[in-house]
C-alpha cells in the first residue's frame, strides 16, 4: 500500500520535470525579490549594527534563505483541492481505495522535491554569488535546518489543505485562498522577521502556526537562535504539525457528509 503512495510522489515529480522551463524564470523572480529586500534592509540598518537581535549579515542571510525556503515549501494544494471539489472529480477520488488527503500530501511532496532540487538549490547558489550571504559552518546547524524545513513544508501544506477543504462549504473560496497566501507571506516572516513586529503583534504570532513555516527555521539557520535552543524551537513545529491534524480531520469528516457535486 505504501508503495502506491510513494508512486504519487514519483509521478508528480516527473510531471513537474516536464514543465521545468517555467521554473527557470522563477529563480530570477526570487533573486529579484531577494535583491529588493536586501537593499531595503541595508538602508533600514544604515549604520546600526543590530536590530531586533539580527546583525546586518544575519539579516542578509535571513532574507536569502527565507525566500529560497519559500521556493521549496510553496504549493497550490489549496487550489488543486478546491478545483477538484468544484468540478466534481473529488467524487471519483473518494471511491478509490486510498486516503484522498494523504495522496494530496504525497503529490505536494513530489512537487516539493522537484522545487528543492531544481529551484531552491540552484537558486541558493546563484543568490550566494550575488549577495554577501554567510552560510553556517556547523554541519549540525545544517542538519537541524533541513529537518525543520521539512516540517515547514508539512505545516504549510496542512494550512493549504485546510483552506482548500473549505470549498466543500462555500461554493467559491477564491478570495479566501488569496487572503491565506497574503497572510502566510506576512505572518510566517518571509517579508519581515517576527522579532521586528510590535510587541502585541508578535505576542499574537506566538499563538499562530505561521511562524513555524519560515521564521523559526530561518532564525536557526542564520544563527539568531543558537543551536542549543534549536530543539525547543523544533518542538514548537512538531506541536503545530500535530495540532493542525485535528481541524483537518474534523473538516474532512464534516465535508464528506455534505458533499454535493455541482453540475455533472
Amino acid at each position, binding site marked *: 500500500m505504501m508503495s502506491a503512495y510513494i508512486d504519487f510522489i514519483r509521478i508528480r515529480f516527473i510531471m513537474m520535470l516536464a514543465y521545468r522551463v517555467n521554473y527557470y524564470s522563477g529563480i530570477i523572480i526570487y533573486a529579484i525579490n531577494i535583491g529588493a529586500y536586501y537593499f531595503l534592509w541595508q538602508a533600514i540598518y544604515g549604520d546600526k549594527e543590530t536590530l531586533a537581535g539580527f546583525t546586518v549579515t544575519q539579516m542578509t542571510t535571513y532574507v536569502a534563505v527565507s525566500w529560497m525556503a519559500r521556493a521549496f515549501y510553496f504549493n497550490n494544494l489549496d487550489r488543486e483541492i478546491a478545483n477538484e471539489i468544484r468540478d466534481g472529480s473529488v467524487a471519483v477520488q473518494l471511491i478509490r481505495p486510498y486516503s484522498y488527503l494523504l495522496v494530496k500530501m504525497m503529490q505536494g511532496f513530489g512537487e516539493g522535491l522537484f522545487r528543492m532540487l531544481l529551484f531552491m538549490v540552484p537558486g541558493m547558489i546563484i543568490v550566494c554569488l550575488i549577495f554577501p550571504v554567510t552560510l553556517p559552518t556547523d554541519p549540525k546547524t545544517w542538519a537541524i535546518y533541513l529537518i525543520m524545513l521539512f516540517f515547514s513544508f508539512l505545516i504549510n501544506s496542512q494550512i493549504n489543505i485546510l483552506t482548500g477543504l473549505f470549498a466543500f462549504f462555500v461554493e467559491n473560496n*477564491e*478570495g479566501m485562498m488569496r487572503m491565506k497566501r497574503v497572510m502566510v507571506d506576512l505572518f510566517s516572516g518571509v517579508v519581515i522577521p517576527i522579532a521586528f513586529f510590535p510587541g502585541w503583534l508578535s505576542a499574537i504570532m506566538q499563538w499562530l502556526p505561521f511562524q513555524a513555516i519560515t521564521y523559526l527555521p530561518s532564525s536557526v539557520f542564520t544563527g539568531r537562535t543558537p543551536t542549543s535552543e534549536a530543539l525547543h524551537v523544533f518542538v514548537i513545529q512538531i506541536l503545530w504539525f500535530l495540532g493542525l491534524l485535528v481541524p483537518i480531520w474534523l473538516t474532512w469528516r464534516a465535508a464528506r457528509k455534505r458533499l454535493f457535486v455541482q453540475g455533472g
Partner: protein
Amino acid sequence: MRYASLFWEYIKNYAKTRLTYRSDFWIEVLSDLLYQGMNLIFILIVFQHTPSLGGWSEAEVVFVYGFFMIPYGVFSTFFSIWNFSERYIVKGEMDRVLTRPAHSLYQVLLENVDPPSLIGSLVGAIIMAISWAQLGLPFHLLDIAMVLLLVISAVLIYAGLYTALSAISFYSDAPTGIVPLMYNIQNYGRYPVNIYNKMIRFMLTWLLPFAFVGVIPASYFLAKKTDDLSQLALITPVMGVVVFTLGLLLWNHGVKRYRGAGS
C-alpha cells in the same frame, strides 16, 4: 464618440455579470486591500526600528506609497491583461477581436476591466491626504491639477510597459514568463530609489521606468532632498507619453504580424 458608447456598453455588461455573484465582489476588494496593506504594514513596522530610510522619513515614505496606489489602482482597473497570452493567443480569442472594427487593444482592455481595483486608488488618495497633513505641506489649488497630471502620466507609463509586454506574445507564442518577472521588478519602484545601487537606479529610472510611477512624481510635493529627485518629476508626463506611444506602436506592429495560433 463611438468609443465612448462602446465603453458604456462594456461597463453595463460587466455590471450585469458581476451582480450575479455579489459576495465575490467584496471578497476580491478585501483581499486586494489586504495585499496592499501588507506593503504598508511592512513600511510601518520598519520605521519602528529606524527614523529614516535613505534620508526619507516615515510620513514621506507612506506619502509615496499612497501616491503610488492611485495610478496603480487605475492601471489595474483598465489594464488587467495578465493572461493575454493564454486567453487571446493560445486559445485564439484574438481572431474574434480582430474581426471587429474598433481598435483591438481597446476591445481587449474593455473585455477585462476590473473596477474593484479602483477602491485601491481611493485608499491611496486617503493615505496621501493624511500624510500630506502630517507633513504640514502647503496646499494650493494648483496641486490638485498637478496630482491629476502626474497620476495620468504614471498610468500611461504602466499602460505602455504592459502593452509592450503583452505585445511580445504576438512575436513568440511560447509562454515567456516575462509578465510575472516585471510584476516583481515593479515592487522596487515603491520605495525611494536612492537606496539602490547605481545600476538598479539607472534601470528603474530610464529602462523600466517604475521610479516614474511612484517615488519621482510623489517627490514633487515633498521637501527637497540632497539628491533631488523632484527635478525629474516634471519629466513624468513626457515619459508617460513616450512609453505609451512605444507600447502602442509595438502592439500595432504585432497585430499586423499576427497569424493566429493555427487549427
